[in-house]
């Protein structure tokens, strides 16, 4: 799985595989809010529930979800650009 547009290198990284819903989203949201506007955050997520819900929740917050990178270990890195306050 890869993105049509090449994914940009992230400006920051957060591991959200050590928490569960709803902290997964909260952790991602807080980390994203610490980024500069336009900055790209890579969020490591577990497969399943977090991957189904976190991209959508960030999108609903007005953030720009760029794509997924499969880490081939049951986790994915979700790349998100900070586009909203």
């Amino acid at each position, binding site marked *: *799985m*890869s*993105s*049509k*547009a090449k994914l940009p290198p992230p400006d920051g990284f957060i591991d959200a595989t050590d928490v569960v819903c709803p902290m997964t989203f909260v952790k991602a949201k807080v980390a994203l809010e610490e980024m500069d506007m336009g900055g790209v955050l890579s969020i490591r997520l577990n*497969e399943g529930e977090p*991957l*189904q819900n976190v*991209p*959508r*929740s960030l*999108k*609903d917050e007005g953030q*720009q*979800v*760029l*794509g*997924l990178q*499969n880490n081939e270990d049951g986790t*994915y890195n*979700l790349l998100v650009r900070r586009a909203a306050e």
Partner: protein
Amino acid sequence: MATDYKALKNGGFMRQIQKDNFSLRLKVVGGNLTSKQLKTIAALAEEYGDGRVHLTSRQGVEIPFIRLRDVETVKEALALGGVDTGVCGPRVRTVTACQGSEICPSGCIDTLSLATKISERYFGRELPHKFKFGLTGCQNNCLKAEENDLGVKGGYNVEWLEEPCTLCGVCEKACREGALKVTEETVLFDRAKCNHCGRCVKSCPADAWRGQSAYLLSFGGLFGNRIAKGRQLEAVVTDSEQVLKLADRALDFFAKHGKPGERFRNTVDRVGWEEFGGHVGGEMS
């Protein structure tokens, strides 16, 4: 004069074990009451009840410990405060609903407006036995659609749009049915596996999935003395008016074939699902 318990029950007065005390059932649609209605209810519970209200299992509200002599007074006061009384007995009961797409991020249909239409059309209608409608906005099924005589579950008919798609792969992971495969060039969509949950639409960061509201109907659910899951109409309905037409036909079928005191499910089981399907115009899975 002898107490007309049947008339009281029609008006939602449930006899209590305490002599001459009634639990007054109120009309609620989709679990919504305004603050003004709540204030009216609170004041009457204070003045005529024992100061509490009971929240029923189907989003209803009852004021217990209303004395028989106060019944008419309380009814009038409720009406002034914009509160109607509920119903019991063999008729269409409270129409339940989750918050739906107007409030909940997961919602695919506007459950409250459809619940209001259904309640306006059928609430209190006499039938061979009680008849319950329940509406839920999505596959999460918070409102347990299939427990109801007629359940409505929201979904989406989905369509993939190539142009805005970035092939990011989020939809493939969001889909729980294994209906999507994102390749280097395209998205492969196995429609036969799609359960209309709409998670692809909700999760897509590029708005590359379009969703049209769809209604998944189930008939004959029971969750009381007998437990039976409502059977789903195979066809997906995309027009809320069509939901009402199908409901009309289901209720007419029940009115025509049901024996007094027989639940809808038992009527359809007795008369036959094929015959019922022929009457409403669709097969059940």
